[in-house]
């Protein structure tokens, strides 16, 4: 059993892994997944004794760990180059031959020969290792690792750069090896995950965030989605070019409340609050439950009936002067748990997203082809393309939240209100939501109003804070 206990590791002060807790039991085969730069290669390298330990322990690692990775490959090439430089004789060295490189670590010559043929390296055996192409070098690395009779095999992106036939062969070979040898594989593309993998480790920002048993279908699907959001190159879909919102005065605030007060016969929820939200000025609104956050938001969205007795300027309208609520809502995208409770419809996911163009719960109008196409782009971004017609109310709570965020953003509103978007979500779904919010914040020109009852939970990129007290 390999055991990483509260392990923190430094890699040349360039990168650190933090507080890794991970056990690999006999019989388990792990896939390490994560976005680029998340630390998944570093975690794999730790198993091959790389890095400087800052804290914690690593135990149970067997003697012979074979690691195939770009870093190892680069090191070997670098070493070959240095040999050249060290040679001061004027005969230009060809460097070590491929055959010699393979021989160096070889414990199973028969296997090595088979591999050389299978991967089509036979004609290159006499060549200098450092003259090979990247793909060829990678094959050599694989042959070295596989024929070294390791106790554990750690492969970082083993299928990269392999042609179709080599890849198919390697996959079969690994499946067979899995019977006798524990394996840890790093992959960028989740859909290449080999069948023998039993567990998935998800790394983000130098931390091991999730360990998922593959038999847990739900967790597996969520992780798939998270990776998709983190790693797919898809952009936030554009707004509908045929539907222009009325222009807003760029110098006027989006919203301005003066002396906002909400009072019932037996209690006062808000008193004399002034607040101005300028264009492109994202805000975080915090405060304990019952401090009036939702009430304040509903004054802005127009859902609170007392918005008509307050001095509120919203999107160029002084409230209560003959504007309709739909003229206000057209400028706002809105997500909250309450909305989710309200949205109990059996409408398909595509239509739920399209309903964001109309600010309606459910869809009551025939949608245009452009709207459909945009909704489909959002579904692709969420990794839900195949589920466009699934009824919304059969989705998991976390998936519903993602779809509602897409619905709120679909028209690229000038103001996006996220009222506790992570409330009620488990850790994985929180990360899914945050990954999506992060993408939205980075990409669009929408001003974000993020509501969170814990002031400490700050969102990167939001510098204005308003805290309500009880």
């Amino acid at each position, binding site marked *: 059993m390999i055991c990483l206990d509260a392990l923190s590791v430094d890699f040349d002060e360039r990168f650190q892994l933090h507080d890794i807790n991970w056990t690999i039991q006999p019989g388990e085969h792990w896939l390490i997944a994560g976005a680029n730069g998340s630390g998944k290669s570093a975690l794999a390298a730790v198993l091959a004794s790389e890095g400087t330990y800052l804290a914690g322990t690593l135990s149970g690692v067997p003697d012979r760990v074979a690691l195939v990775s770009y870093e190892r490959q680069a090191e070997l090439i670098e070493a070959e180059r240095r040999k050249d430089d060290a040679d001061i004789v004027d005969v230009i060295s060809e460097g070590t031959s491929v055959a010699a490189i393979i021989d160096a670590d070889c414990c199973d010559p028969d296997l090595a020969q088979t591999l050389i043929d299978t991967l089509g390296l036979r004609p290159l055996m006499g060549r200098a290792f450092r003259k090979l192409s990247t793909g060829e070098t990678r094959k050599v690395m694989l042959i070295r690792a596989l024929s070294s009779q390791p106790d554990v095999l750690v492969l970082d992106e083993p299928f990269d750069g392999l042609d179709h036939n080599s890849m198919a062969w390697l996959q079969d070979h690994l499946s067979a090896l899995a019977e006798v040898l524990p394996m840890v594989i790093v992959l960028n593309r989740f859909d290449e995950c080999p069948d023998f993998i039993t567990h998935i480790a998800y790394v983000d920002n130098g931390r091991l965030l999730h360990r998922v048993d593959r038999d847990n279908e739900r967790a597996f699907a969520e992780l798939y989605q998270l990776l998709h959001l983190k790693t797919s190159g898809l952009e936030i879909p554009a707004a509908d070019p045929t539907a222009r919102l009325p222009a807003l005065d760029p110098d006027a605030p989006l919203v301005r409340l003066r002396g906002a007060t909400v009072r019932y*016969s037996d209690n006062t929820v808000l008193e004399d609050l002034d607040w101005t939200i300028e264009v492109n000025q994202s805000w975080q609104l915090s405060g304990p439950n019952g401090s009036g956050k939702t009430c304040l938001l509903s004054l802005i969205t127009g859902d609170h*009936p007392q918005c008509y007795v307050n001095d509120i300027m919203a999107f160029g309208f002084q409230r209560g002067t*003959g504007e*309709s609520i739909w003229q206000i809502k057209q400028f706002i995208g809105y997500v909250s748990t309450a909305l989710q409770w309200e949205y109990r*419809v*059996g*409408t398909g996911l595509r239509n739920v997203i399209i309903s964001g163009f109309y*600010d309606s719960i*459910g869809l*009551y109008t025939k949608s245009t082809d452009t709207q459909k196409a945009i909704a489909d782009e959002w579904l692709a971004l969420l990794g839900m393309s195949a589920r466009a017609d699934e009824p919304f109310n059969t989705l998991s709570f976390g998936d519903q939240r993602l779809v509602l965020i897409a619905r709120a953003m679909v028209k690229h509103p000038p103001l996006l209100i996220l009222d506790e978007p992570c409330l009620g979500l488990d850790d994985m779904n929180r990360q899914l939501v945050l990954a999506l919010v992060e993408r939205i914040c980075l990409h669009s020109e929408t001003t974000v109003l993020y509501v969170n009852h814990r002031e400490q939970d700050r969102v990167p990129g939001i510098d204005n804070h308003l805290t309500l007290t009880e």
Partner: protein
Amino acid sequence: MANYFNTLPLREQLAELGKCRFMHLDEFDEGVDALRGKKMVIIGCGAQGLNQGLNLRDSGLDVSYALREQAIAQQRQSWKNAIENGFTVGTYEELLPTADVVLNLTPDKQHTNVVNTIMPMMKHGSCLSYSHGFNIVEEGMQVRDDITVIMVAPKCPGSEVRAEYVRGFGVPTLIAVHEANDPNGQGLALAKAYAVGTGGHKAGVLMSSFIAEVKSDLMGEQTILCGMLQTGSLLCFDKMMGEGIDPGYASKLIQYGWETITEALKYGGVTNMMDRLSNPAKIRAFELAEEMKDIMRPLYWKHQDDIMTGTFSKTMMADWANDDAELLGWRADTAETAFEKTPASDTEISEQEYFDNGILMVAMVKAGVELAFETMTSAGIIAESAYYESLHETPLIANTVARKKLYEMNATISDTAEYGCYLYNHACVPLLGDFMKGMRSDVIGKGLDVADNAVDNARLIDVNDAIRSHPVEAIGGVLRGHMADMKRIV
């Protein structure tokens, strides 16, 4: 005051009854323009008053409330409703003289009194609006000549009127202009703008007449909508008790059964509701329904006749004058019935089981819907109106039974509907007595006891033909088709 309907010659009576047209969305292109900038004052802030007011204000219109003095002085619920929702509240004297449109949303029973009080204060050339035409049609209220009188009647309880608007939709709405009071010919434009302000245009608007609205509304609510559900609940429960079914189960089967069964009705009419049964059960339900229709037909005719002649409203108004003695007595009796007093158990009943074990309930819905529709149309009410007042509204009322049984249903519907419902129930329970003696738990409580679902082909074809060719199915198909264009895409 004379019954207005009875003052008209037959030819005009028929013309008014026959008025009903499903309006197209593009007829509402002007939106709320006809009301923009006009001062709308609502009298009464109850279920309809508050919720219609919230919608109208959110549509950009100027809304305030005139309440009777006691309501303001005692800060009654109606006053709180208006104040906490940020509306201006004032007395009649303060608000009415400057009002352009006055919305009378007080209980029907109070209309004569209220309208007589407010009329002298109303501005010359202003508009008076109702959400139900009883006062005009049955009580013959005479409104000043210069005042335009219109009706905008949402076909839903007030809470739904608001909830659907907030979702971006609306509820089906009936509008009408009182021919005798349309001095400048502006009635229709105002009614249309008002329907847009409440969101009704999105769900479908029927252009009708005061007379058609009242005569069909009364008929529907007394018979199939409330009466049949009440009678059916009581009879089916007592039968199941006699058959040894667990009381908690029986209570649940009925309380939620109406809602489940009529949900199928809402989506695909009587045909779809019947199709949810197995073939042998369908044939059985069909036969039971035919039998009940023959038994109940004279009762449906009597209700319609009494409504047409004004006998019904006269009887009810006599009870109003007698401090609602009958109504309150019947209400108390209902609370004491075995069905009402037996709580539903928490046994799981699947959606399909409500059909399989509730064959008699399905038959009752079919019989009631078809009879009410047939009776209304044969009395000169146009098929569109008859459809809305029978089949269309049945699921809405069934929802109220699901919430809290008959108590909830009777609390939600108007006093007028409640009164008519009890009248029907008192006649219908004994009328179905002999028929019910022949019923067993196979049609209510347990489901058919058959070895397999074999049926005779010819018989099944006959039964299916009969179900599908009923006129309520023809008009239902057309109207649900219209509605689907505008309705939520489910």
